[in-house]
């Protein structure tokens, strides 16, 4: 057990910086022309992504194989393998980055590990086939800095993800980690810290965008014998994974921010409420909390000051509504996660009735760097009312799926076409869904809208936690709206009538429409019901649940009308509105489709055109993916 004081922390930082400097300086030094190899350098580091996405593609095995190859070639004294958090470029994962020359290998398999060691590390030749190929120029790009995916990004909340070993506290300390906490404890009053956060303009990254400094100020004002700092890590929005990546890649930033918040609002206990579905994030947090305790950065007398602070982990159990702060608090108390009416706000009466401050993971990750770099620096980034950056999980029908961080005010076009590399398979862009089940769909006409809290809300969507799902011409917007509503109906806690019954009725109407049984009156009813639910539901979940429906009705009215009046689904997604048929002039009678068809709906003799029985057909699409002659069409 080391109980550090302020001086010890500075000493550790200086020492750790010496080893980490190589990574920082070499990254800064890479330019378009100079990304040569650093063979002969004394120390080579192989950074390998250990995030959930890359782990799913066997990155743990890559690490093992790299280590084995290094060992086998007797170069273990100068080559080190470091497991980092997410690099963000999930589309091209798993990623291995060689330092100090910043070579960025993509889609590495465990079998490639030996070649990387033998060719790159020992022989000094880049493994060309593993380099990223710029789809626009068809040239290879060997470092991240010169990839379009990274060019327009600005990584503040993700500053350490993919850069440090999240299970090594000293690497975090080297990146000015715990400096903000030390400075606060040593030189600043809680009021001063809260003022800096207020001036920075930081707003809640979980969705609603409430000013963080103000929230801390409220919690500080209530006096009680116990107070709590809660980190909301119940990332329930399907398709959003930034909170998980931060906890996996930079857990100490969250811990440090919670301790700072504790100092500001006079709380000695912190709780992290995390989804049980995130085992790796839980593991990294536990390791980080233990290390912080060992270094005297958590526990009694933090950094030898008079401030006590410790953190416990609480598990969620798969309920979307628990992202709502009152529901989350009830869940932590061991109860059903049902929300309650505010006021009283958690700042007054939260966990077990004590004043509680709840912040989202990404919000917290911004706190330490704001305090080290200053409010002015942070507020110079972004737009008038939305400061700093926002992390988005870019997914769906887009070329570069991944986790990105951009300054507020970046346009959708920049995100989708410059960073995201455009729509997959050259298809037409149709919509992008932001804000998850609480948000809406933005269309072509919104492409040049600067992204911030205000503009997204004005466009009928919302920031939400940062899921950004791109859809193309093959996506039926009525089905998408139905998909989200099914989610809400599943996840509604059932406490208030508008959400429990209203959403159910909306879903029934949407189901009718997708089955070709809708009427024009149904469309009016959807709008009316949606507005009523928004106005009357108890919590944030219910109040925003009609958004996907209302925004698609607004932006894709024609598509709804087509479903109702012409029983037509232009994206061919609504099964009841399409028929599959075989073009007899193209069909060679190879029988492949008939053999694949799961319900034996296809008949015909060999070498003669086949036919599909529409009454039997379940429209699964298996025949289309089987046919080699492009003979099957949907109408």
């Amino acid at each position: 057990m080391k109980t550090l004081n302020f001086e010890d922390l500075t000493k550790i930082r200086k020492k750790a910086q010496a080893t980490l400097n190589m990574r920082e300086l070499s990254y800064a030094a890479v330019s378009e022309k100079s990304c040569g190899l650093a063979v002969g350098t004394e120390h080579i580091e192989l950074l390998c992504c250990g995030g959930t996405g890359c782990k799913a593609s066997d990155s743990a095995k890559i690490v093992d194989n790299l280590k084995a190859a290094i060992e086998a070639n007797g170069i273990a004294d100068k080559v080190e393998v470091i497991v980092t958090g997410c690099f963000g470029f999930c589309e091209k994962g798993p990623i291995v980055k060689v330092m100090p020359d910043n070579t960025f290998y993509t889609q590495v398999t465990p079998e490639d590990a030996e070649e990387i060691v033998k060719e790159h590390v020992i022989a000094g030749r880049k493994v060309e086939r593993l380099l990223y190929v710029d789809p626009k120029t068809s040239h290879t790009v060997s470092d991240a800095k010169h990839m379009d995916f990274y060019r327009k990004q600005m990584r503040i909340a993700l500053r350490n993800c993919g850069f440090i070993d999240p299970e090594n506290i000293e690497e975090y300390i080297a990146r000015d980690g715990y400096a903000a906490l030390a400075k606060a404890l040593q030189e600043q009053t809680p009021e001063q810290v809260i003022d800096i956060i207020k001036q920075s303009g930081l707003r809640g990254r979980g969705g609603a965008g409430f000013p963080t400094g103000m929230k801390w100020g409220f919690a500080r004002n209530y006096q009680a014998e116990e107070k709590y700092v809660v980190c909301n890590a119940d990332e329930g929005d399907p398709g959003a994974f930034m909170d998980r990546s931060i906890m996996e890649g930079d857990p100490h930033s969250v811990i440090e921010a919670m301790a700072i918040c504790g100092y500001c609002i006079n709380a000695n206990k912190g709780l992290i409420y995390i989804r049980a579905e995130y085992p790796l994030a839980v593991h990294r947090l536990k390791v980080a909390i233990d290390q912080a305790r060992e270094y005297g950065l958590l526990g009694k007398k933090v950094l030898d000051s008079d401030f006590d602070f410790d953190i416990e982990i609480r598990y969620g159990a798969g309920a979307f509504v628990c992202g709502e702060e009152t529901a989350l608090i009830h869940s932590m108390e061991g109860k059903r996660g049902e929300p309650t009416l505010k006021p009283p706000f958690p700042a007054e009466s939260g966990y077990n009735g004590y004043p509680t401050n709840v912040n989202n993971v990404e919000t917290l990750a911004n706190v330490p760097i704001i305090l080290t770099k200053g409010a002015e620096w942070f507020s110079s980034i972004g737009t008038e009312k939305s400061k700093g950056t926002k992390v988005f999980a870019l997914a769906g029908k887009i070329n570069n799926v991944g986790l990105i961080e951009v300054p507020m005010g970046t346009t959708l076009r920049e995100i989708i076409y410059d960073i995201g590399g455009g729509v997959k398979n050259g298809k037409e862009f149709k919509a992008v869904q932001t804000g998850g089940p609480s948000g809406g769909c933005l269309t072509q006409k919104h492409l040049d809208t600067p992204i911030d809290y205000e503009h997204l809300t004005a466009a009928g969507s919302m920031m939400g936690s940062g899921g950004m799902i791109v859809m193309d011409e093959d996506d039926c917007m009525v089905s998408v709206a139905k998909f989200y509503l099914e989610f809400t109906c599943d996840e509604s806690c059932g406490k208030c009538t508008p959400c429990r019954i209203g959403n159910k009725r909306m879903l029934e109407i949407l189901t009718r429409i997708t089955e070709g049984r809708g009427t024009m009156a149904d469309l009016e009813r959807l709008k009316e019901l949606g507005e009523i639910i928004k106005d009357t539901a108890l919590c944030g979940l219910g109040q925003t649940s009609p958004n996907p429906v209302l925004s698609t009705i607004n932006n894709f009215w024609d598509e709804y009308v087509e479903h109702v009046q012409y029983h037509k689904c232009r994206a061919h997604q609504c099964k009841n509105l399409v028929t599959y048929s075989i073009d007899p002039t193209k069909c060679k009678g190879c029988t492949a489709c008939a053999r694949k068809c799961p319900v034996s709906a296809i008949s015909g003799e060999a070498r003669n055109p086949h036919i599909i029985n529409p009454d039997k057909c379940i429209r699964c699409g298996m025949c289309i993916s089987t046919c080699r002659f492009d003979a099957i069409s949907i109408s």
Partner: protein
Amino acid sequence: MAKEMKLACNVVEQVEAICDKHGNRPGELINILHEAQNMHGYLPEEMQRIIARKLNIPASKVYGVVTFYSFFTMTPKGKHSISVCLGTACYVRGSEKLLEEIKRVLNIEVGETTPDGKFSLDCLRCVGACGLAPVVTIGEKVYGRLESKDVKKILDEVAAND
């Protein structure tokens, strides 16, 4: 609640030990349920009653919590638990079709287990491997970029490796 088989003595003891470990505090209910399910695989009625008795709260409270959260289950899972991701990213890349195909191949519905106890089928919302969408997890392993036609092969492989 349907009547269940009697739990083995050592299971009862283990559940009680879990409750004791958490100081029998009602506030720890969710943590206790997590551990109990981890140990036994599911949370039958009898186990819920034991927990209720230990924490001195009504069994209805425990049942209310178990049924509220999708992570908790009252039915035993198959040897290989299949989860199809229905997060938005996977949905727009065709996970619904995968689900249909798995249901067809195994002849079970979501939430059910095959009669031989080998596979059980569930849905989940986002494992965060959106770069690999659509994804299906079988046990701990994540299968990415799947198409309907891959389903049968993968299931056969998993079954063959038993």
